[in-house]
């Protein structure tokens, strides 16, 4: 069983929801990432979504754009990100890791080559923002061949017909984007999300994660009422930005790790009551 599938199966048994934090690899510097991943697990993360920095993050709002820019100052590449996951796996063999990013770095590496390297590094799923299933007819088999789960987004504009098609190609979980917009913009409407999730549940048995617009423990808990997983990104990356500016790398990394851990603990607690 894939780590992602196993993770959701176990959470279901325990009647718990998955907490999925997103951070960009290499943000604000490459030294922080592996330690931060371990700290997030210790603070209640069930799955880690690791952003692969890209020069042109078309679907991201300013917060995550800047995360990419900070990481790219150090030249954090796709290969570097895979090396980070490999290091993480030396002491954690359980927590699923999903890469989130854009297609071009993967195109350049080559689909087969990437899939093999990602699998060898211990990656479990790949969410590629700018490749819908229509364009992924050779990409998905390449991921599958290396036991990687292709994670796809569903959005408020996705029709039920499209949902059905997308869910045929997806595995691990599907990710519902709760708002029309880029990452980190508006607040989500929980009632609206609940309605859409009901439709998604008609077309798939896969667990459903919800992201974009989860800002604090309260929204996390509200979304946890209706979804199988909550994804929190910009709220955490904001904490990176605040501390990266004012402190030295070493001090900043400590503060960032502590702040992010604190937020995750509060979300975990809110989700579990």
């Amino acid at each position, binding site marked *: 069983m894939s780590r992602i599938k196993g993770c959701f199966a176990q959470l279901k048994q325990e009647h718990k929801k998955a907490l999925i934090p997103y951070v960009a690899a290499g943000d604000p510097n490459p030294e922080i990432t592996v330690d931060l991943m371990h700290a997030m697990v210790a603070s209640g993360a069930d799955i880690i979504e690791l952003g692969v920095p890209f020069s042109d993050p078309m679907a991201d709002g300013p917060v995550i754009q800047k995360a990419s820019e900070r990481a790219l100052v150090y030249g954090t590449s796709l290969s570097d990100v895979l090396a980070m996951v490999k290091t993480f796996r030396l002491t954690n063999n359980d927590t699923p890791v999903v890469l989130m990013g854009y297609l071009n770095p993967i195109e*350049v590496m080559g689909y087969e080559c990437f899939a093999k390297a990602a699998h060898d590094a211990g990656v479990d799923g790949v969410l590629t923002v700018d490749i819908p299933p229509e364009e992924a007819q050779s990409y998905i088999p390449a991921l599958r061949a290396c036991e990687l789960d292709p994670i796809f987004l569903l959005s408020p504009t996705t029709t039920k017909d499209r949902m059905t098609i997308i869910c045929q190609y997806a595995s691990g979980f599907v990710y519902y984007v709760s708002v029309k917009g880029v990452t980190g913009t508006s607040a989500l409407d929980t009632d609206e999300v609940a309605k859409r999730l009901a439709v998604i549940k008609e077309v798939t048995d896969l667990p459903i994660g919800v992201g974009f617009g989860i800002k604090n423990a309260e929204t996390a808990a509200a979304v946890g009422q209706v979804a199988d997983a909550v994804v929190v990104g910009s709220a955490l990356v904001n904490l990176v930005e605040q501390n990266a500016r004012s402190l030295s790398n070493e001090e900043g990394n400590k503060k960032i790790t502590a702040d992010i851990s604190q937020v995750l603990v509060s979300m975990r607690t809110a989700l579990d009551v």
Partner: protein
Amino acid sequence: MTIEQQTENKLSDMPDDNGHFGQYGGMFVPETLMEPLDELNQAYINYFQDPEFLAELDNDLAHYVGRPSPLYFAERWSRELGGAKIYLKREDLNHTGAHKVNNTVGQMLLAKRMGKTRIIAETGAGQHGVATATVAARLGLECVVYMGAEDIQRQALNVYRMKLLGAQVVSVESGSRTLKDALNEAMRDWVTNIDRTFYIIGTAAGPHPYPAMVRDFQAVIGREAREQSMQHEGRLPDALVACIGGGSNAIGLFYPFVDDQEVSMYGVEAAGHGLETGQHAAPLCAGKPGVLHGNRTYLMEDKHGQIIPTHSVSAGLDYPGVGPEHSWLKDIGRANYVSVTDEEALSGFHDLTRIEGIMPALESSHAMAYVKKLAPTMDKDQFIVVNLSGRGDKDIHTVATIDGIEF
């Protein structure tokens, strides 16, 4: 696929239903955009068969844009170069001063029929921004134009023109602060405000259906040039030349000729300080295929797949990608892609100004600079049609600065 195999289905049949030109093109976008793009594609397919829509478009092109644009025989310049005859397709005489307006008039008609009330656009040189703000003003629609902070500096005149026309110009501070970043920002706006917003992309790039749709609106250039060539010379041209930023003025000229194998086509990219310096904007000449801004195409990227900064003296060519149809025409060998440096382009600018009394945009000056090389290699009874995509007023400040003149 070779040209021979492809000609059984005509070259002009491309793209396929999903917007692919061979391996290029397609729809590489976040999920939120898939439905809206589908809706746009349906509108594009339907209205291009609707006589009423086409009549309104023709009417606007005739009376608002001022078409047909002349095909002018540059006699003195031809004589001076001593080779093929040179004809200039005078897109610089269009309302707003460039070919861009052919496309904005068309897309605006679609927006109107689709009931959209808010118009957004990206711009590099500002020509597309001006052309968009112009048609938005005419219909009284809200208009937001995204422009890289660096380009805002380089093209201050056009920024002011857009503001006069009632558009809001948003300075884009992310990434390299040029056209590619403006396009990212416009996409983000579109994803966020999808219900009432129409995104007018200014070049034959982006996700399907934009490359095909922009081409079809710009193809009026080539259709007229065909007819005018018959009038002037009684036959089709031997060669077509156009500059390539995203590729819209070039594909507009080329497309009505793609099935005529005897007509050679030359797309001229910006070699900036020289291809060997890495400081250029010539993805077809010196880049590799990849995925950016919704389509697969030739790109300027580093070995990790990050898009790299481009350089060109002309803001409208300063783009790391290119429309996917050009990538395909390159691979099948139907069109030739070449490049000229900043310096060569400037000499093209000065030559045309001095010899013909026509001041070309710095973008178009790249095409002129290549004609300087090409015409002398051809016979006197041959003729070239070169796209004079825009007028040079907007660039006078840049040219003056390079020539060391202060106002």
